[in-house]
């Protein structure tokens, strides 16, 4: 065994083994299962060729769920990043107690998605309804009772969860831009907003690329918040792609088709994510 291989095995062997065991092998096995009509339980896995892919492409509900996921992702990604950037600006501008604010904004990210979903469900269903009823004097309907309201709640909870995390990356971005560059711009006659637009933001491009990539990929595969906050309700109008995949594979015992739909979701997510990184990286500048 060559020295390089030994060195690699010593430092990366365990990691490679674990990565292969929990990611690569299941992924390949998963691809194999898309060619079977396995029900998820039976010892027999009849080979059906590409029938599951044909069924997946013809599954109207899946594409509706995918469409919903795209809408949710667009709104959530924009709001997460706008809010995260604004918060990062706030907590790096020297405002009093900025470390306290940093910790406070980050805390929602420490709460697991399932718990977070239940907490917000309580707030939307009970707290807001009680407040609304008290103010108007008439019974108020929960936001979760309408399809658009449920979508709003999902976006709201996701923004609340992820904005603090993305804020940290933007904070790092802000801090990496040297003050001398901004000062130089100001001396040259820039207003603070021009300095921000023409100096700080272009130099923070890598932060934007990372944050947008992370938020896109996370939003595309949303499941936990979806399950605990809306469970697909009302009327199945808040079922996102990952929940549809789970239902197909496990609830409807159509594992092969569910796996094929999961693979399509993965490809869509990967293409969007990689394209965004590629486009974002192309325009990166250095000071």
């Amino acid at each position: 065994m060559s020295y390089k291989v030994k060195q690699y095995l010593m430092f990366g062997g365990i990691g490679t083994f674990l990565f292969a065991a929990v990611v690569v092998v299941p992924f390949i096995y998963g691809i194999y299962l898309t060619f079977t009509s396995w029900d998820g339980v039976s010892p027999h896995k009849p080979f059906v060729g590409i029938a599951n892919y044909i069924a997946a492409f013809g599954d109207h509900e899946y594409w509706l769920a995918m469409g919903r996921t795209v809408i949710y992702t667009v709104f959530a990604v924009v709001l997460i990043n706008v809010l995260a950037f604004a918060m990062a600006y706030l907590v790096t501008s020297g405002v009093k107690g900025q470390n306290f604010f940093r910790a406070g904004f980050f805390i929602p990210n420490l709460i697991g998605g399932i718990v977070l979903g239940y907490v917000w469900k309580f707030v939307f269903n009970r707290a807001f309804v009680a407040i609304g009823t008290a103010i108007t004097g008439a019974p108020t309907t929960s936001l979760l009772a309408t399809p658009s309201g449920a979508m709003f709640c999902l976006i709201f909870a996701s923004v609340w969860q992820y904005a603090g995390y993305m804020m940290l990356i933007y904070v790092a971005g802000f801090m990496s831009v040297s003050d001398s560059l901004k000062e130089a711009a100001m001396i040259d006659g820039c207003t603070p907003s021009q300095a921000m637009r023409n100096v700080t933001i272009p130099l923070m491009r890598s932060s934007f690329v990372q944050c947008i990539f992370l938020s896109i990929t996370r939003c595309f595969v949303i499941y936990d918040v979806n399950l605990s906050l809306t469970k697909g309700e009302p009327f199945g109008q808040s079922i996102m792609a990952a929940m549809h995949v789970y239902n197909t594979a496990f609830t409807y015992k159509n594992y092969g088709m569910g796996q094929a739909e999961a693979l399509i979701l993965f490809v869509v997510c990967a293409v969007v994510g990689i394209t965004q990184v590629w486009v974002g990286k192309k325009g990166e500048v250095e000071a």
Partner: protein
Amino acid sequence: MKKSTTKKLLVALLAFVMVFAMTACGGGGSSEGGEEAAASGGSGDGTSITLFNSKNEIQEDFENLAKVYEEQTGVHIEVYYSQDTVSAHLATKYASKAPYTLNMVDAKDIYSLGKQYGADMTGAAWAEDTDYGISVDGKVLGFPTCIEARGILYNSAAIKNALGEDFDPASIKTLDDFKAMCDKLVAAGMEAPTAILKPDWSLAAHYLQQVYEEREDPEAFIQDLYAGKADLMKDEKFNALMDTFDVLKEYNMFKAGAISAEDELVHQAMSEGQDAFQFGGCWEWNDLLTYDYNGPVGIMPVPQNVQDDYTGKLVGGGSKYFYVDGSEYTSEADQEAAKAFLEWLASSDEGKTFVSDTCGMVSPFKSNTVPCTNDIGKVVKEYVDAGNLVPNYDYDPDDHYSKLGIEMQKYLGDQCTREELAAAIQNYWASTTPVEH
């Protein structure tokens, strides 16, 4: 020299970490079971089996029962529960080649999972003592844990408080009677006398299901639905049940947000007597006890204006079935131990007390005369003894409750008309592959 010793130590440490990690990953349930067995004083003859319980509310009771059984027989039973969908959870156990010895599943799963993996229990003494065992292809595969029935739950105390007189459920024979009672309650000051649970399983698998079950030949009707020949808008039973559903909707205390009414609030309303009626079944009992219970809460048939053979009857039957894993992953000895446990559960005094008294379930076994401690169960037992139970239909497709649950939710939320609901139900059946059974 010093360098190589450090290196060796490092390698030994890494090896230890790896072995430890792999043991932790691979050990799974059996190692936990082993530790538990050791902690509880050893397992007699060494037999140790696993049991999957899908009724969360009796998990602790089941664990206690397993201890009693171990003291008596020396057989250790490790009781597990999962929040996951039952079939999905069991699928992972089979995929890891470590299935439970005893599996508590719904009746329909016996026809799929039980048929594939269940051990034959033909000839078991318990099978002679019940009308609710499940046989598939001539083999006894499903052991019923209890009888569950569906109907309209009523809170007698709430009605008495409002009207000042005792409530006699037998006085509600038709939907008109029911509506008159609701009006009376409203006039007496009860703002909204009904509530509706909105989950898909309650609306589709329990309420809508009655449309198929309350007829002479449910199978023929289902086949008509598959073939696209049934016309629900012309079906007397569908319209009768939907008329009742309309009345439940009309007096619903969560009318403003019917589709977002949380189960907890609906249960609380019934438990504390804020409302008088809601559709449900005897499994709600433990949920009702979570609140400031002000009962008794009983159950009566869903009132309908159509009078037929099913008037005055609840719909229900055997529920939560055990099958013994008969696959290659479970030894003959463990299978026998599991069968012996089921026999004990059905025939021993401890087993009978566990089902009827401790868990408050309605026993499916004729020899069990231990009184049921569940207020709703007590009423169900009377219906069972009088032969007034319309059997369940257990061969729905797996996506039935979920997909038609959505349609029922639309109807509950006034998002569709009855015609549209009927069309959606017919379309669902006509586009679904018939379940083989």
